[in-house]
């Protein structure tokens, strides 16, 4: 105990090394990590997936199974009720470890949907924890559980005690899990991506709760996330982790104002923010996180670093830039005055994510210099002059709910309930909303993957609009030649048993565009177009990374040279840096091939970045439609405002002061009367519950539509237009630091 850290620290990890043994060899997942958390502090641990964040945080409480893990080196000191305790030495002593878990340190996990036991009531699961650590009588434990459920903001806490996991929504489950974690008043909460699996509005609620509970329960938090926005608003200090090493540590202000390490700079620049210039290339990091067994010698980031120099073959020293800001990079090692390279000017141009060290034939990237969106905004005139790609009118998709032995229809899920949209040629229409709002169904409707229950679909392959609402599958095949679709999960949307040549070439053969050798050639061209190598045709999907798989899916969607592309959450399953690469690719291809696009996503920042116009969807209805920038700056529907407010901005101090939407998305089978948003709307009036507002133009703006009773009166807050909208956000974040904090 003589080298125990000072009492101010709740957690002190010193030079932790964890390796995993497998048949393939030994890989070092955590390679000398040092990290501390002080009393009452929230520390963010940031990095892309596969960087060893989870192994680090799980090592603290001995949740990493060993074997296969081996703790080669390092100490983890934890402040417990018995004083400072070193936990690595306790891994063999499960009893001592168990006394710490749940009592001195607790943990919440990434997937609230799967982290609550499915067959035990919520009450029983929480009281179990109390009874394990404290000898109290069951009635008292029961009372304490109810109090705790109340504290985490679950409505009707006593009623929740007898409910099961499947009766709670994702957000409610995460609240219940937080209650479970904190019921014994631990000093440290470990949060492993606690909001990643949740919708943006729910994410904002949970982050708010964590911030609030930190104060009320005077605890510290160690938070893992890949989202720079989340840490900016929540953390006091940040450690950036890459391939088992901490590459930069600093206060949240320092990190965002002057990110020192090139990886940190890259992460910040990769995120499409609400302030970036739309339809421009994001400054992405090149490549992807390599396999742990392929970690470069010396600086682990060297092969992706834009500032790489010969010295990087050696392990970089940790340089103290300021009192509370250090980084492991050679750039700062010999310079007396620490001055990071300007992120805005020196970051690399976007390039492909073929992680191979050898040079990869890169795509002909056309830099988009124009700052105006492709088409002029304003609703398309109903006249059919060939300028309209797709027009849907009053389209609906209803699913019957069948119950009982005789499968009687007891209700209807109105997944899509009367949607009108027009997409002009060359235009990108962004469709945004929370999960369950029906946006994916719209994408499946316009490609006729599902049959519409009502309404009219018209599509113009290359000339006049033609009715496709009820045409036969045979005729639809001809139309589909002009449509491409990219799906969310790049792994499950590619047939694992088919090689890339057959995956990408199948549409060519199906539409008899090419056969035999010609297919190989065309597939080769397509692959090069999306930034892969033509020679990789014979490989199977599992041989590619997530980003590369999404490129394959894009190549397949574009094989028949369609004029229209539906992209359904094409980047939400990808890491931040890869997400930026794919968005850049989509923008480039759209420009090259003059594609029209329906871009579906839940993240309004991503949608804003690629779209000309945005349609906001809530419970099967469009609630707002208009120019992408206009909607973000001057939203007219409270739901749009809520979506904007929920996006965690990668700018510390710029906290959203707006009121967050209350509660969860209502049941689409039983939508609220009147305005569907009124149950969560902070501006709700009596009329909202009675009368359903129609989508109508805002007075004085013919191209901005809203479905709110008070859209002409409400003064809603969007994202401020910052400066002259010059990219990137990093610079803005710095420049605006002082004045935003002052407010």
């Amino acid at each position: 105990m003589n080298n125990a850290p000072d009492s101010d620290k709740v957690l002190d990890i010193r030079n932790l090394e964890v390796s995993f043994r497998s048949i393939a060899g030994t890989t070092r997942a955590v390679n000398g990590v040092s990290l501390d958390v002080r009393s009452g502090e929230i520390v963010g641990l940031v990095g892309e997936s596969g960087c060893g964040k989870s192994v680090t945080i799980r090592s603290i409480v001995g949740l990493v199974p060993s074997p296969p893990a081996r703790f080669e080196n390092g100490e983890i000191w934890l402040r417990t009720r018995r004083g400072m305790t070193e936990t690595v030495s306790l891994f063999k002593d499960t009893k001592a470890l168990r006394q710490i878990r749940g009592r001195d340190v607790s943990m919440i996990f990434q997937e609230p949907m799967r982290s609550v036991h499915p067959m035990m009531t919520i009450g029983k699961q929480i009281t179990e924890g109390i009874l394990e650590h404290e000898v109290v009588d069951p009635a008292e434990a029961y009372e304490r559980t109810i109090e705790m459920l109340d504290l985490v903001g679950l409505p009707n806490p006593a009623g929740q005690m007898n409910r099961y996991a499947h009766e709670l929504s994702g957000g409610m489950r995460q609240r219940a899990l937080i209650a479970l974690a904190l019921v014994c008043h631990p000093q440290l909460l470990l949060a492993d991506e606690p909001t990643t699996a949740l919708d943006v509005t729910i994410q904002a609620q949970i982050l708010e709760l964590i911030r609030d509970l930190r104060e009320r329960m005077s605890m510290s938090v160690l938070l893992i996330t890949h989202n720079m926005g989340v840490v900016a608003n929540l953390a006091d200090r940040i450690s950036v982790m890459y391939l088992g090493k901490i590459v930069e540590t600093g206060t949240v202000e320092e990190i965002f104002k002057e990110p020192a390490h090139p990886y940190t700079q890259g992460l910040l620049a990769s995120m499409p923010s609400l302030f970036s210039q739309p339809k421009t290339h994001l400054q992405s990091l090149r490549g992807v996180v390599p396999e742990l067994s392929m970690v470069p010698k010396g600086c682990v980031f060297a092969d992706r670093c834009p500032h790489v120099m010969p010295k990087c073959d050696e392990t970089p020293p940790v340089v103290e830039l300021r009192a509370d800001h250090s980084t492991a990079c050679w750039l700062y090692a010999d310079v007396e005055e620490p001055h990071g390279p300007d992120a805005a000017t020196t970051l690399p141009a976007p390039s492909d994510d073929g992680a191979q060290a050898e040079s990869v034939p890169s795509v002909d990237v056309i830099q988009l210099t124009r700052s105006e969106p492709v088409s002029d905004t304003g609703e398309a005139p109903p006249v059919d002059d060939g300028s309209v790609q797709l027009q849907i009118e009053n389209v609906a998709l209803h699913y019957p709910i069948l119950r009982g032995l005789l499968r009687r229809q007891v209700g209807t899920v109105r997944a899509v309930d009367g949607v009108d949209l027009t997409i002009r040629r060359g235009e990108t229409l962004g469709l945004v909303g929370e999960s369950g709002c029906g946006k994916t169904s719209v994408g499946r409707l316009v490609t006729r993957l599902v049959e519409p229950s009502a309404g009219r679909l018209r599509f113009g392959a290359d000339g006049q609009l033609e009715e496709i609402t009820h045409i036969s599958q045979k005729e639809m095949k001809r139309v589909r030649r002009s449509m491409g679709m990219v799906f969310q999960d790049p792994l499950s949307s590619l047939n694992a048993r088919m090689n890339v040549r057959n995956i990408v070439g199948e549409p060519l053969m199906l539409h008899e565009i090419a056969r035999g050798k010609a297919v190989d050639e065309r597939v080769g061209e397509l692959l090069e177009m999306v930034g892969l190598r033509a020679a990789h045709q014979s490989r199977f999907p599992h041989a590619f990374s997530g980003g590369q798989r999404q490129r394959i899916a894009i190549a397949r969607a574009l094989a028949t040279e369609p004029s229209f592309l539906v992209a359904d959450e094409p980047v939400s399953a990808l890491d931040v840096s890869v997400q930026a690469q794919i968005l850049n690719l989509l923008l480039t291809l759209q420009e090259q091939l003059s594609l029209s696009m329906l871009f579906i996503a839940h993240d309004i920042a991503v949608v804003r970045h690629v779209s000309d116009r945005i349609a906001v969807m809530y419970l099967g209805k469009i609630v707002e439609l208009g120019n992408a920038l206009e909607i973000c700056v001057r939203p007219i529907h409270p739901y749009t405002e809520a979506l904007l407010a929920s996006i965690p901005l990668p700018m510390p101090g710029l906290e959203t002061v707006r009121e967050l939407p209350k509660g969860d998305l209502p049941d689409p089978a039983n939508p609220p009367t009147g305005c569907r948003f009124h149950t969560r709307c902070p501006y709700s009036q009596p009329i909202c519950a009675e009368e359903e507002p129609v989508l109508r133009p805002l007075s004085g703006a013919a191209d901005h539509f809203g479905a709110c009773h008070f859209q002409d009166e409400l003064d809603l807050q969007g994202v401020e237009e910052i400066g002259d909208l010059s990219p990137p956000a990093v610079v803005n974040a710095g420049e605006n630091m002082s004045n935003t904090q002052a407010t």
Partner: protein
Amino acid sequence: MKTYILQRFIQMIIVMLVVMLVSFIIVELPPGDFLTTLREQLTEQNVDPKVIDSTVEMYRARYGLGENWVIRFGKWAWSLMKGDMGYSMQHNRPASELMGERLSLTMWISIATLVFMFIVAVPIGMLSAIRQYSAWDHSFTFLALLGVSVPSFITALVFLLLSVTLLGATTVAGLFSPEYVTAEWSWAKFVDMLKHVWIILFIVGLGDTAGTIRVMRARMLDTLGEPYIDTARMKGLSSAKVYFRHALRVAINPIISSIGMRFPQIISGSTIVAIVLTLPLIGPLLLDSLLGEDVYLACSILVVLTLALVIGNFLADLALAWLDPRIRFES
């Protein structure tokens, strides 16, 4: 919960009716009439013609022969429900008499096999999963694979051979020692049966037990990888509580739901073993009746076995609903 039970109950009755209808059609399929066969048989046995007439008339009335098939089916079904299984042409005895003891013995052996399977397979499967890749796991994996792949009649033959050559036993086959085979039920006979029955349980249950070990191991491994197990660990619970209170109840789910299915499987699976070991079970009787085209007997056995399957499934469904709140919720 009530609607769920009611639903399952109604489904059970529908399945039973369908099976009875199919069985009835099978009974009706052979050309000619059961009464002609019966008359011929009785005549061959030199029975008094008056008796023949009255017997035939009795059957005609009971089964409604000569009327349309709906009424005939109704009467047949009704007499089945009253426990009248019809008449075995091969054995010249009522089917229920032939099935009687064999049926109850078969039921007991099947249930005992199930219990044996449960008691042996669940703990071994759990242990294999918890100590994955340990020596325990490897040896049980080996044994389980062996158990799955060796057909039960081979095991039975090997047992016969070993007990005769190594132990010098003379009465390995059968469910009873020779002196008790025809004896009335008594305590001594019961004790004698217990001495024999464990070998049968082992032989009949080995394949299923081995399969269940594999299923249990795989399910337990899946469950232990679920995030809610991490949640449970992070509460500071002991391993035993994590395994038994949190993991077991989820992992055991498919095994319970398969019980209903296993029941008839055990009955038919035991047939070959029963033939090899000359056990008085229902399987050999069914085989016999099928070979001898003894349709009433065969159909009665089929209906009874179906009833066992359906009731087994019903009980398994109830057990699942009791165990898993999600199933209660869905209904």
